């Protein structure tokens, strides 16, 4: 295990950070093609077991990597993420490449355009290695609701990777890609990031364009980064953030400078541990936050407890608002213009049969729930009431930020669970998002930073929340949590060598596939 730099199931020594890889490619020390082939090799070894991808774009990625190398050779700027292999959640539109949302209903559909975030990644020189698995239409917390089968947790393949962006989280954790994009509607980036031991961030609503993200719940959806380090996540955020005239809800604010903020440390920052989000989680999840808080205090932060009373209503409000919006967003899958059609004698039968055949049970359940919540006679009691409760939650967080610069909470109630453990009980599955949902309702940024309990084989996440557009302070805190986190699974880990260009290009010391982290360390 020498040289292991991260908690993932990837090979030691191959896990140079994305920032280091880009620097190596930009400077010509390494070729984008070589970096890509290393990652594809890992995909070849572990993907059959993990199933992170719906589609691996090996040939396209090689062409993109070669183009980056050609740019470097020609002296052109290949972009800040030059040659960095990235994985895209398969609900992000990619021009000419199937975009399935892990649903049968989009069978055969090839978008005629790239999502804005994807265009920005390409412009930054990143190399797209594939489209990752998800819970169908991002509805789920385990990636078991995929029409193409579940993704498995690289740290323990009997367990789920979380969801809905489970494929992206697993791809980064397994070393299939250095970075990935996911989408987060109720925790769909942060929760799988926590369960897979990687960094995942949901930006402020409106900071990253949603154009080309297949909508689940429009007022909650945000695209965000997965990475193995906080710095990498910041670098990816800097690339994808910024105003987009194609998204009316895109903020006019300039993209934040995040990597500079990482150096600032947390001394003097006021950090609040959210009482309501510590209640009811498993002891080790709460313990992780307490340990992180203590470590941050040691670094000079002022840590206290803070109550956000209305946060307890988040889950209920979310499971009225999100399905309501989803029921409308998913109406367009009707068999007329693209995707699946089941033939029938008349249009109404065609609509109903197509949708019955094309959607899986969880999607149907949420469409039903949302349709019910919006229907005549129930709107005020359910949807309308949930929107008012949303106002209360926003107010309570605003109040909390009067006394604190950032807030801390667990990302999930506990570590990754076994496949199938919650599939028969929707409500139990929904509870997985109890700590992450409030930030989607308020629009505030939130991120999950891995935390490896000393006596556990599986990672947890410490969640950092900040006021809207508070990404800089959030990443500062995130970097401090990362630095304070116990080494993965007790392995004597080292941070990637500073200026790790040399190190990254050296042949890997340990070539054997890493076992699940905790297993070797005792």
């Amino acid at each position, binding site marked *: 295990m020498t040289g292991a730099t991260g908690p993932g199931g990837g090979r030691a020594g191959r896990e140079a950070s994305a920032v280091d890889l880009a620097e190596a490619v930009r400077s010509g020390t390494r070729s984008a093609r070589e970096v890509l082939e290393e990652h594809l090799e890992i995909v070849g070894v572990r993907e059959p077991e993990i199933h992170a991808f719906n589609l691996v774009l090996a040939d396209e990625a090689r062409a993109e990597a070669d183009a980056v190398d050609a740019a470097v050779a020609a002296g052109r700027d290949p972009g800040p993420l030059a040659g960095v292999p990235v994985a895209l959640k398969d609900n992000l539109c990619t021009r000419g490449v199937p975009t399935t949302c892990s649903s049968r209903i989009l069978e*055969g*559909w090839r978008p*005629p355009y790239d999502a804005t975030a994807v265009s920005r990644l390409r412009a930054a020189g990143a190399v797209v290695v594939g489209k990752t698995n998800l819970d169908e239409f991002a509805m789920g917390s385990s990636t078991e609701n995929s029409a193409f089968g579940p993704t498995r947790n690289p740290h323990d393949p009997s367990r789920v990777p979380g969801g809905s962006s489970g494929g992206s989280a697993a791809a980064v954790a397994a070393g299939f890609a250095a970075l990935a994009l996911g989408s987060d509607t109720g925790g769909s980036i942060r929760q799988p990031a926590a369960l897979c031991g990687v960094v995942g961030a949901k930006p402020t609503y*409106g900071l990253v364009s949603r154009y080309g993200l297949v909508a689940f719940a429009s*007022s909650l959806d945000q695209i965000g980064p997965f990475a193995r380090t906080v710095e990498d996540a910041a670098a990816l955020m800097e690339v994808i953030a910024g105003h987009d*005239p194609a998204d*009316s*809800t895109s*903020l006019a604010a300039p993209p934040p400078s995040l990597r500079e903020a990482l150096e600032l440390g947390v001394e003097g920052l006021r950090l609040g541990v959210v009482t309501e989000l510590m209640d009811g989680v498993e002891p080790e999840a709460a313990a992780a936050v307490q340990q992180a808080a203590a470590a941050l205090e040691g670094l000079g932060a002022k840590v206290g407890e803070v109550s956000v009373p209305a946060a*307890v*209503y988040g*889950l*209920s*409000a979310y*499971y*009225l608002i999100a399905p309501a919006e989803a029921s409308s967003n998913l*109406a367009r899958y*009707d068999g*007329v*213009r*693209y*995707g*699946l*059609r089941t*033939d029938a*004698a*008349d*249009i*109404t*039968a*065609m609509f*109903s049969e197509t*949708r*019955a055949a094309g*959607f899986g049970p969880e999607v*149907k*359940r949420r*469409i*039903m*729930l949302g*349709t*019910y919540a919006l229907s005549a006679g*129930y709107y005020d*009691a*359910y949807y*309308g*009431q949930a*929107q*008012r*409760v*949303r*106002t*209360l939650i*926003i107010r309570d967080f605003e109040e909390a930020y009067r006394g604190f610069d950032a807030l801390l909470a667990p990302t999930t109630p506990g570590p990754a669970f076994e496949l199938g453990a919650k599939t028969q009980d*929707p*409500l139990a599955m*929904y509870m997985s998002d109890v700590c992450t949902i409030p930030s989607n*309702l308020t*629009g505030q940024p939130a991120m999950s930073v891995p935390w490896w309990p000393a006596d556990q084989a599986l990672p947890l996440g410490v969640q950092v929340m900040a006021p*809207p557009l508070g990404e800089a302070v959030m990443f500062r805190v995130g970097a401090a949590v990362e630095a304070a986190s116990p080494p993965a699974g007790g392995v004597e880990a080292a941070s990637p060598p500073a200026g790790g260009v040399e190190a990254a290009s050296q042949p890997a010391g340990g070539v054997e596939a890493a076992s699940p982290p905790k297993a070797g360390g005792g």
Partner: protein
Amino acid sequence: MSSRISREDVAHVAHLARLALSDAEIDLFAGQLAAVLEHAEDVAALDTSGVAPTAHPLPVRNVLRPDEPGSCLDREEVLAQAPQAEDGRFRVPRILGEEP
């Protein structure tokens, strides 16, 4: 707000949502929807008088674009995605119901 949901309610909602459900699915959803809505009772019971609803997480207004034409998609590319097309148009089975 009672969270008892009848099979008729479920069938009606399924029609609104254009989902052909089996009897077994109707039974399953009747129970599951009731469970979720029961969990939502705490929200339904809150006193929110005087509280404005939030439809957008952040207060942004007047996002407008200039009235300038852009490019359209190629028709062949568009219709190639359609399950059925005819005469430059999307083809659908007969429409029995009236336009609402």
